[in-house]
């Protein structure tokens, strides 16, 4: 997968440092407000999986946990991550969709195709697909640092829940 954004550029570094961090914190707070906290060991394997295989490997793990995890509250956590990371912005509630969040960022705008310019339905569908691939690509680049923010805030908010 070719890289779309330059993560070493200053504006992306600032984006990683602030909006991405705030979004990760909000996602954790949202999960904890709506669900029981899971033990921190559920989250500890995430960074390793991302560094080993990126977005594809994380998706595989999330799907596997959703299917096989026997505890209801763990299942709820993995279902949340699935919704948060892998369900595109077409769903009704976009507030905690990572896709939707990335799509709004100024550094992504030049790489997106605007469907209003499509000549027909087929072209619009192709554009949507290309946009999804673009955002997946950017997400893959940012995933590791995103989960640094996500996990540290989760550990902080659930102190002593190890």
């Amino acid at each position, binding site marked *: 997968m070719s890289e779309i954004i330059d993560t070493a*550029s*200053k*504006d992306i*570094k*600032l984006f*990683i*440092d*602030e909006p991405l*961090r705030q979004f990760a914190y909000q996602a954790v707070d949202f999960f904890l407000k709506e669900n029981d906290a899971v033990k*921190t060991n559920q989250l500890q394997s995430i960074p390793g999986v991302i560094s080993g295989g990126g977005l594809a490997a994380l998706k595989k793990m999330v799907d596997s946990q959703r299917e096989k995890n026997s505890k209801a509250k763990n299942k709820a956590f993995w279902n949340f991550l699935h919704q948060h990371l892998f369900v595109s912005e077409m769903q009704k509630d976009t507030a905690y969709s990572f896709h939707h969040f990335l*799509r*709004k*960022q*100024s550094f992504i*705008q*030049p790489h997106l195709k*605007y*469907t*209003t*310019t499509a000549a027909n339905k087929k072209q619009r569908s192709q554009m949507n697909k290309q946009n999804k691939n673009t955002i997946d690509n950017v997400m893959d680049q940012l995933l590791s640092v995103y989960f*640094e*923010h996500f*996990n*540290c*805030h*989760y*550990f*902080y*908010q*659930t*102190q*002593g829940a*190890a």
Partner: protein
Amino acid sequence: MQDNTFVKLDDETLKKIDVYLEKLYEKNYTTGKENNLGKLMAETGLGSSQVRGLEQLTFSSTRFSQVINYIKNQAGKEKKEKSQWTKIAPKLINQLGELEQEAYIIVNKDPAIDLLSQAIDHVNHQAEADKSNQEKWSKIAPRLIKRLKEAISLSNDKESSDAATVLEIKMRLARGLMKMIVANYYYSQSQQSIEGE
């Protein structure tokens, strides 16, 4: 070794940083202040290696958020009965948050680029949602989006230099704060040992 300098700051900005740190010292770090985190670290019995570890991380970090995440991680993994980082973390995160806001005040960053970006998203959304006026939108939206993209592109150069400045100011402020904390930590420790004799 990673380069943790983002941009060379001008003399005026460096002066603003120093003035702010001086004010912060007077506010929180003169004798007896309750927000003196060095003193609090000494009182909770936080080990010297922990304090030095935090200092070292702050000086070598390439991101401000690495410092905040480190503190959250330390507090998060601490056992309940120990309660050192748990007491320190909220105040420290709060003080770091103040530094982050100050960085924007010092640089006076222009928020226009984010607004332009939101405008593109909004136009695209409206154009898709307003089914009864598809023909009108198909004429207006592409032109409007093109103009907004041009405006973003014009702002991008300024944004990059602002971003680099904000990052550098934040890191300098954090390093300044950490120097105060470490000095006060060792001073409080020495006071404790004198009182204990």
